[in-house]
């Protein structure tokens, strides 16, 4: 479980970093999206990995923290997903505007000579 998650975070981050260093705007956006997935996994991992554990404490069972998953990182991830989704949408609009105004999809709005 741990190795799968860390591999996923590592591969997503590596691809994301490579893509945001590329010269085309669409590659940058895909790179940022991949990075945000990696970060979301990372936040999730920071709440410790647990299988088959609910994030909500029930009133019957004794309050034994080992039986429950940490709910806070899940709430944080939810917020982070929403925000990065909105930002990606906004970036897409800026990309289209830039493509429309300059006629190129290069990040510097002009083709290198």
């Amino acid at each position, binding site marked *: 479980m741990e190795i799968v998650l860390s591999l996923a975070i590592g591969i997503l981050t590596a691809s994301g970093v490579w893509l945001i260093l590329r010269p085309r705007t669409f590659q940058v956006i895909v790179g940022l999206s991949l990075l945000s997935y990696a970060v979301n996994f990372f936040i999730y991992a920071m709440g410790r990995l647990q299988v088959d554990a609910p994030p909500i404490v029930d009133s019957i069972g004794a309050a034994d923290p080992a039986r429950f998953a940490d709910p806070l990182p899940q709430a944080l991830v939810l917020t982070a997903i929403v925000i990065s989704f909105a930002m990606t949408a906004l970036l897409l609009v800026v990309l289209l*505007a830039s493509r429309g105004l300059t006629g190129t999809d290069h990040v510097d709005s002009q083709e290198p000579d």
Partner: protein
Amino acid sequence: MGGWTDHLIVAPVLVPLAASAMILLLKERNQKAKRAIGIAATFLLIVISVLLLGNVVAASLEGEPSTRAYLIGNWPSPFGIILVVDWLSALMLVLTSILGFTSLVYALARWDEAGPRFHALFLLQLVGLNGAFLTGDLFNLFVFFEVLLAASYALLLHGSGATRVKAGLHYVSINVATSLLFLIGAALIYGVAGTLDMADLATRIPAIAESDLALFQAGMAVLGIAFLVKAGMWPLGFWLPQTYSAATPPAAALFAILSKVGLYAVLRVFLLLFGTEDSPMPNFGEEWLLYGGMATIAFGTIGVLACRTLSRLAGFSVVISSGTMLAALGSGEGAVLGAVLFYLVSSTLALSAFYLLVELVERQEAGLVAPTGIEPVFDDEYTEAFDAGEEGEVGIVIPATIAILGGGFIFCSLLLAGMPPLSGFIAKFAIIDGLLSLEDRIPVSTWSLIALIIVSGLATLIATTRAGIDLLWTPSDKPQPVLRLAEAVPVGLLLLLCLALMAFAGPVMTYMERTGQSLEHREGYIQSVAGASRAGRADPR
């Protein structure tokens, strides 16, 4: 204190939020109502923030703790969302609301018609700024950062055009990536310390296991990078001058405080968590701030000398001012803190006024009475703003425009360069004085910092003088530009505030020093937040 004044703390976030929601409901063409709501909301913000500041001072005079915490949702700290107002937040709130008001008044002259939904976005930007200054929780700091960034993306693109879209593309990409760094830092801190509430975090740091300390430091460093990108520290701040110069003037004038948000976060988080000597990592990251700040000043100085347009000059002045504050913070706390805060207020006001003036001066140079039209990007875009009513609405023509522009320009240059007798000089003098009285033996780094501060002032003076001669002094046969009252008043107001800073430097400095002390004495903050009382259920308010 009690009753409604307790709830005043949440008002700086709620008032602009409600106002911008109201504006969104109005028809796009109903400019008058939107302007009225916008101006009323920003004016109300000034009143509220001055009241909050007065409460802080009054509480301190009565010997009560001046830090006040507000529990949103009435969950006890550290579980709930918390807003905290103390000396520093109250000061930043007042500064933000003043900049918000003046920039919005300036925008009324013509810029708010350059594109759709200016007023709503402007108010949302204020929501984000005020929230970031008030929050007592790292994750909410992130959320409010995103609110202010999202609004700033749109404000930067306001008015459209190829330059703005190009700058916007870079700005948005860089800030989205930075936000991810912020999240990584916050997640690491949560993973190690188990909390994101800043006051709670400060009490938990001594208990962190030796083996986890490196991980915690890594988290703080990543978080620090996220803040420093916003503050524009070299080499993380190359985006700043070109972005700010591409923005419309009222947006840029408000952006003058955007880079100070990063600085505020550094001040707040790092002083609260690492201020005292008995924490396991005293003065964490201090050298980075010192040397990074010095490199920033040097970069800004070279940039100021090299740039050819006034708006870029203003951008590099922002860089210099960030660098000065970062380096002064890094060289040591205590005596310098009050001076740094004084410099923060003075330079933010001056830069904001400068951004507003730059456009007036450059417009005169270009001989344009109205800014050039905008190109539509999408089919359904609303672009008819400029043709409507541009002729009919003449405004009051102020005589001797050049004299006013020139006077304001000289005033701004002196403020930015830090020449006597204006407040810029007092601030720089206080910083240098504080640096010299830190220790008996002054290290080489402090000497070089002082030299850099003085040289950067000289460079600013040279650059502004050169530009001033070019733009204002040389006789030109172009028609006299029309200066509207709505454009002249905000600039005058900002400069008047700088004058007031100079005239009342004594009391203002006392406030700043008191703020510095409150940042040093972090127990006051921690106790106020941890001991914030919940509103009782028997007491429905």
